[in-house]
């Protein structure tokens, strides 16, 4: 109770005004970048700047108003950072559209992306309004896990699954295409969090000690291990290296945080090395990726099949951009295949320079930091695990994709959150942000004052929750 009292003494401020101010800055980034693209490429401010800017503003302000109404204590930094990234991404995609247009190639991706962003914001709002307490999601632990596996299986089905760029991670339904892995990512976080929060004691305490690691009992670890192995197996069949790495990292982080045993990290790290080595030795396309990564300039030439054309063109672009970049319209980011999706960071590096690359990385860092901060202050284990899981997935994804584009690690195809062209990723990430805002709102919300009805102390443990929910509705 003493601890509770200390907590009650500190009340988080709502800081919605700060959020609004930051959102105006974020809009300046998005709309300013759009105008800069027009000036840089076509020499004039785009004619539709008012309509475009207005629409962007409407989306952002709508999101803000909903946060103000249903999650007043939510973290004030997350939404503006996301808005800035999304706006910048739209501008860069628009810039590439103009280049593709000049080359008589397919374009109009920015318009598509704006529609996806609209859908993303709508789902963000729906999530925030529909989900008043994140703990409700704990009920869907197994449902989430099962849905994730089903979603991951879909691309393997003949008829709707398609292979793009060697990875079979897409489904096509009529005119719509979708990457189910992006949604599975969120569902798996929920499933892991839900399962581990229930079984963390058993996992941490029961079991035998082998060498340095306390191995849990099979029946405690079994279900989640199975869930994870199935996901991993599917991804291996789909040749989706990036997502495999992501899910492995997520599994490790969730296990480590819930059991508080660093041994899991050691064991996982070891397993990862063994797995990576095995994949390098056994799977030919992994070996190619690693060779290309170790010696990209060598494989750039046609006589070696131009295997590293994409990463090397990206590196050339980023080198060409230098510290401050060539300016919108000053580079040729369209030379890099898939410049508007997987390789959007190289476009940013080329035309906006190292400065913008660092800024973008810092923005991602902020998102992760805010997610983990929500996890720290969160009062329930499920919320903690979920926020940590979402933050870790986000961090890993950013690391894998930007590290791949800048040749820090071998290249694996993943989208750059909020920047890359791609509907599934954008929508899923907006939902992730909604979930994080919901958790941080719950975490920062003041604990209902329970000191007055001190005489009913016997019931307080039970009424506490009821009161908390009621006071808001």
């Amino acid at each position, binding site marked *: 109770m003493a601890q509770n009292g200390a907590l009650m003494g500190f009340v988080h401020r709502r800081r919605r005004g700060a959020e609004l101010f930051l959102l105006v800055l974020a809009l300046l980034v998005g709309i300013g970048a759009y105008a800069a693209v027009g000036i840089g490429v076509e020499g004039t401010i785009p004619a539709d700047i008012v309509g475009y800017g207005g629409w962007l503003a409407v989306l952002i302000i709508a999101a803000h108003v909903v946060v103000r109404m249903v999650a007043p204590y939510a973290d004030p930094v997350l939404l503006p950072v996301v808005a800035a990234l999304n706006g910048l991404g739209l501008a860069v995609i628009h810039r590439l559209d103009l280049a593709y247009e*000049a080359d008589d190639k397919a374009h109009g991706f920015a318009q598509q992306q704006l529609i996806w962003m609209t859908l993303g914001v709508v789902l963000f709002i729906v999530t925030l309004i529909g989900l008043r307490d994140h703990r409700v999601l704990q009920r869907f632990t197994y449902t989430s896990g099962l849905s994730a596996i089903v979603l991951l299986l879909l691309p393997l089905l003949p008829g709707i699954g398609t292979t793009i760029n060697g990875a079979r991670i897409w489904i096509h339904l009529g005119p719509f295409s979708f990457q189910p892995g992006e949604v599975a990512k969120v569902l798996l976080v929920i499933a892991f969090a839900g399962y581990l929060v229930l079984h963390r004691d058993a996992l941490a305490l029961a079991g035998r000690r082998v060498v340095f690691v306390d191995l849990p009992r099979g029946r405690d670890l079994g279900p989640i291990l199975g869930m994870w192995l199935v996901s991993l197996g599917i991804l291996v069949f789909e040749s989706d290296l990036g997502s495999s790495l992501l899910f492995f990292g997520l599994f490790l*982080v969730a296990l*480590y*945080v*819930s059991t*508080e045993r*660093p041994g899991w990290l050691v064991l996982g790290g070891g397993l990862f090395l063994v797995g990576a080595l095995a994949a390098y030795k056994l799977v030919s396309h992994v070996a190619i990726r690693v060779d290309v990564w170790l010696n990209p*300039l060598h494989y*750039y*030439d046609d006589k070696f099949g131009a295997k590293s054309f994409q990463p090397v063109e990206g*590196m*050339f*672009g*980023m*080198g*060409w*951009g*230098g*510290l401050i970049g060539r300016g919108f319209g000053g*580079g*040729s980011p369209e*030379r890099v295949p898939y410049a508007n999706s997987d390789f959007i960071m190289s476009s940013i*590096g080329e035309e906006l*320079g*190292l400065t913008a*690359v*660092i800024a973008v*990385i*810092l923005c*991602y*860092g902020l998102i*992760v*930091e805010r997610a*983990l901060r929500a*996890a*720290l202050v969160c009062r329930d*284990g499920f919320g*903690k*695990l979920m926020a*940590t899981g979402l*933050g*870790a997935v986000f*961090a*890993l994804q*950013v*690391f894998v994709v*930007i*590290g791949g584009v*800048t*040749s*820090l690690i071998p290249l694996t195809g993943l989208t750059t959150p909020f920047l890359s062209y791609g509907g599934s990723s954008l929508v899923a990430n907006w939902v992730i942000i909604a979930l994080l805002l919901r958790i941080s709102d719950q975490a920062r919300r003041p604990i209902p004052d329970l000191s007055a009805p001190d005489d009913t102390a016997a019931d307080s443990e039970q009424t506490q929750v009821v009161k908390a929910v009621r006071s808001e509705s």
Partner: protein
Amino acid sequence: MNKPIRTISLFCLLLFLALMVNATYLQYYKAGDLNNDPRNRRVIEASYSRERGAILVGRDPVAESVKSDDQYKFQRTYAQPFKYAPITGYFSYYSQTGIEQKQNDVLSGDDSLLFVTKLVDLLSNNASKGGSVQLTINPDAQTAAYDGLTALGADVQGAVVAIEPSTGKILALASTPSYDPNKLASHDLTQVSQDYNRLNQDPREPLQDRAIQTILPPGSTFKLVTAAAALESGNFNPDSQVPGGTTLDLPQTTHDLHNENGSSCGGDRITLTQALDVSCNVTFGWLGLQLGDDKLRDQAEKFGFGQHYLDDLSPQAISRFPDGDVSPPNTALSAIGQYDVAATPLQMALISAGIANGGTVMKPYLVDEVQSPELDVLNKTEPSEFSQAISSSTARDLTTMMESVVQNGTGTAAQIPGIPVAGKTGTAQSTPDRPPYAWFTSFAPADDPQVAVAVLVQSSSTARSEIAGGLLCAPIAKAVMEAVINQ
């Protein structure tokens, strides 16, 4: 669960730090390497799109960039393409040659000389423009050289180099057959590739700059070097009596050295001046044997053989005097510019220029000034001495002897009324089934040299019997010298 969450935060921090460090490495430390990679088309495209500075001859640009409204903002154009191609080179999407390549930093605006200009452009938000390069070329001399070569026929393979003896300025540098650099600078890249392949496979080698890239036996023009070595040895003067006759018995062989047409040089004993007048092989072969190959090589190297002395164009072929122990018969052959001796037209012009300049060879150069886009002079090339090849008295004696060649000997076709001309002809044998190479090197006025010229005709449609330095080359040299003197 907060402790592991903090550990995870730390881990994420490390991940992001790694990303930032790596991005900095890539875009800052490694950027230079990446930009210098010849396969990096961005850099090429950017320079291709930029407004390059002009290459100027006199007041007129021979290469300049004009606005273009296709995918690249500027188009490189060459006003007198064939005449100046060996100098300007070409500026294509795929590669550059000539001044376009050598002065690329200035022309593209990347040179540190243009730093201030670039800074002003950056601050005023203007697209930066490259600086201009002013050449030493005299347009009239260049025209005379090019027209003289092409007058010999459409498929003549030849070259002309003219130098100002007192400075080393290259006044003319022509090579035929030439090509049209406009075609290689075109924005139609498919067409460019086709044109390049056609030029590259042409057996007449139009892309070759014969003035500096072709080394061939200089024939009798090399006798100037032998004569210089003889005079420098102190054992001979222009009036020394030397063997003439019809044949020279080559030691260690059963062969004899004959004169060009098999006849006598005008007596068994003639003066050195007479020997040069008629280009007497017997005399100079004998001189070679007297002097030995080391003295000849020394003299040749002082004139520039075996050395690199042209920085403004590349690649420069290195002229050659046979190295190592040369057997006496071959030394005799070397002394008359045969056997393994090989020289570029530039080298032969440099010999005349050195004699004309009192024995001091000036380092030849082609870039006179580097100018900012506003035509302010940023850098002016100062003439520099390359070597002291011969003493001034030897230079005086050689000048008199060379005047005699034009006055009384094989070089009469180079005579200019009212102006003393010094010269030397050459006709070099290659293989029996090929026509010989015709050479001529000269300078004028002999008493106040303003220009030294070397002319090479490697092959032409002229009948074999007509091929001789005096007949084919001297008139061209004369025209070039007149163009410079009459200004």
